[in-house]
């Protein structure tokens, strides 16, 4: 097995810098705001280095832009990286906070050798303006250690990898501090010297855990990595160092995110019709915008136009510090239009299902109804509403045997308040329902009301007059 490890030395920095091409030094500080964690090249030129106290850094560069590191955001960012890497490799494992493993021995045939894989990954990194140190190792831990040195090589030779590892100083091996000191006291300085020690002695004198780490590096102990599964939602985030006051300023990073969405949708063979855009403000509640397209869509330019329209309608309430674009609902990509061999019936069938499912998805199943007559004398029982079914080929059995009825039936009888100006037919006596307790005993007439409408009215046993339908 061969593993590729991507180490992102300053992921947050890359993420911020590609959303806003702002000049000026930028540094990321830790959660407590005490120490500089990452510094951009401009900041490093000014003499700022990771690990420096923030006060010292500010003394060196008074107009330094500062961003606080947020573990949650870093986790999201790492997941974003896994998402694009998943386009190239199937077996990916996250190594929080800043690394990714990809299993590549199974990909060699697909890409045509290790150098091709290496090149593909490097190219993808350049496209995304990301800095990553890449290394290949015969075990996950070996790849990781080599990547951290920043001197990874494109080789599958196990001996070469072990030699490289052997030259690493003990501090770079990722042991805990106590073991590291003890090993140094034994007079060991490189990893190679530790490899040479007999395993039982190592476990007895130092600790079994240390032995496990060493064996995992060497590959003599199993180190299974559970594959990461891409989530079924799309979520991308952009943060701005300087607050954005005009909607125009958001478009730059939206363009990038939408391009990634398009790529993601193309890759999934899916479409979407709802985007959720959340604009974060410093002191106010976030603005939530829902962007809906009329049909399933995947093109970035269409989404961008819609978002532009939406932003034109709703000016920004406050300066924006960050934005999140999320897509939760996906629909399968429809087959491209055009007639198939069987003619267009198939196509219409498909279109019917698409339309109905879309309507049902938004309005709920209960909102769509299909009507059918039922065998009953009572007008309110003589019809039923059921779920929508695809109509069959057969013609409906229409017959003039059905009695003459109005096209509108009121949802319930309504008292007749006006005196009709003309009576046209009747009475038609309808009496039934003694068998199920919903007794109906009425005389129906057709009457013209003063407003000119034709109504279906009835008189019940208590001499009350009601309207039950309209001859629409």
């Amino acid at each position, binding site marked *: 097995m061969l593993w590729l490890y991507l180490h992102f030395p300053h992921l947050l920095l890359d993420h911020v810098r590609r959303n806003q091409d702002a000049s000026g030094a930028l540094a990321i500080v830790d959660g407590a705001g005490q120490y500089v964690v990452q510094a951009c090249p401009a900041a490093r030129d000014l003499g700022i280095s990771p690990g420096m106290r923030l006060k010292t850094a500010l003394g060196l560069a008074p107009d330094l832009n500062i961003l606080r590191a947020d573990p949650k955001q870093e986790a999201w960012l790492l997941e974003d990286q896994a998402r694009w890497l998943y386009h190239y490799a199937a077996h990916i494992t996250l190594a929080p906070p800043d690394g990714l493993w990809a299993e590549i021995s199974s990909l060699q045939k697909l890409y045509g050798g290790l150098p091709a894989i290496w090149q593909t990954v490097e190219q993808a990194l350049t496209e995304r303006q990301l800095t990553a140190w890449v290394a290949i190792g015969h075990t996950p831990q070996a790849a990781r250690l080599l990547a951290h040195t920043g001197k990874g090589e494109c080789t599958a030779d196990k001996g070469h990898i072990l030699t490289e590892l052997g030259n690493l100083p003990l501090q770079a091996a990722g042991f805990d501090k106590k073991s590291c000191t003890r090993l140094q006291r034994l007079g060991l300085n490189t990893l190679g010297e530790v490899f040479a020690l007999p395993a039982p002695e190592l476990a007895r004198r130092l600790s079994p855990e240390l032995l496990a780490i060493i064996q995992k590096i060497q590959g003599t102990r199993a180190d299974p990595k559970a594959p990461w599964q891409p989530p079924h939602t799309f979520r991308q985030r952009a943060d701005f160092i300087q607050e954005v006051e005009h909607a125009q300023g958001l478009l730059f990073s939206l363009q990038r995110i939408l391009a990634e969405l398009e790529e993601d949708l193309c890759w999934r063979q899916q479409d979407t019709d709802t985007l959720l855009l959340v604009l974060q403000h410093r002191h106010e509640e976030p603005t939530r915008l829902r962007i809906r397209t009329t049909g399933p869509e995947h093109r970035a330019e269409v989404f961008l136009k819609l978002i532009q329209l939406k932003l034109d309608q709703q000016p920004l309430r406050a300066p924006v510090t960050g934005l999140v674009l999320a897509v939760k609902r996906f629909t399968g990509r429809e087959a491209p239009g055009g007639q198939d061999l069987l003619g267009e019936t198939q196509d219409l069938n498909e279109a019917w299902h698409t339309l109905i499912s879309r309507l049902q998805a938004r309005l709920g199943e209960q909102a769509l109804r*299909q009507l059918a007559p039922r065998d009953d004398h009572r007008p309110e029982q003589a019809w039923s509403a059921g779920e929508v079914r695809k109509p069959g080929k057969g013609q*409906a059995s229409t017959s003039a045997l059905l009695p003459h009825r109005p*096209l509108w*039936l009121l949802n319930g009888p309504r008292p007749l308040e006006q005196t009709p100006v003309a009576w046209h037919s009747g009475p038609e006596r309808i009496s039934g329902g003694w068998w199920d307790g919903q007794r109906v005993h009425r005389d129906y007439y057709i009457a013209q009301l003063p407003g000119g409408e034709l109504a279906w009215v009835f008189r019940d046993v208590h001499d009350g007059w009601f309207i039950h339908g309209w001859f*629409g």
Partner: protein
Amino acid sequence: MSELLSSLLQDARIWQGHKHRKTTQPTESTGYQVLDNQLGGLGWPRGALSECLLDTCGIGELHLVLPLMQRVSAAGKTIFWLNPPHTPYAPALAREGVNLDHLVMINTRDQGDFLWTMENCLRSPVTGLVLAWPGQLASRDVRRLQLASEAGGNVCVLFRSRRFTEQNSPAALRLELAPGEHQELKVNIIKRRGSWPGQRCSVALGHRANLAVQDAPRVIHGRWPGAGR
């Protein structure tokens, strides 16, 4: 003077009202010869909105679109009823020869859903006819629906209150409906494409209550023998 006039008439920039161009928009016959004649021998426009403006239900407004419904359902296209004010009565529709399998009734909760649903229905190739009772509609929304309708090429009839007669609307055909004395429907064309509006006609719809043959009311008023006893 006449020379001046004739030279003016030669000028292509002068529009002459009596020579209106024949429109080539696709249409569907209404099924009523009287109304078709008034509409220039055409009928309901396809790919455009039609509006019927009326005060109350029960004046024969459904019978106006019934011939079209029969044709559309026979052709296997779907008819959508959006937010009807009452229940379309299935036995009556079946009796009139409308295939109920092709009829879908939709009720929406709010205006946003309504417009979205309507737009989707209009754009779909499976739709043959959309009947909608929108209530209040902003002019902007009507224009949007008009565009959707153009994209789909379907017939769409909006039933709205007569209050909106004065409001201008991008719909291609606007009919004002009023009941007549003898159960007929008086149609006033407020707007139509390609020609002057203002035609009036009345469509006999007495048959909707099976009254075609009866001129005088047949119900006998008065004291029933033995009623007093």
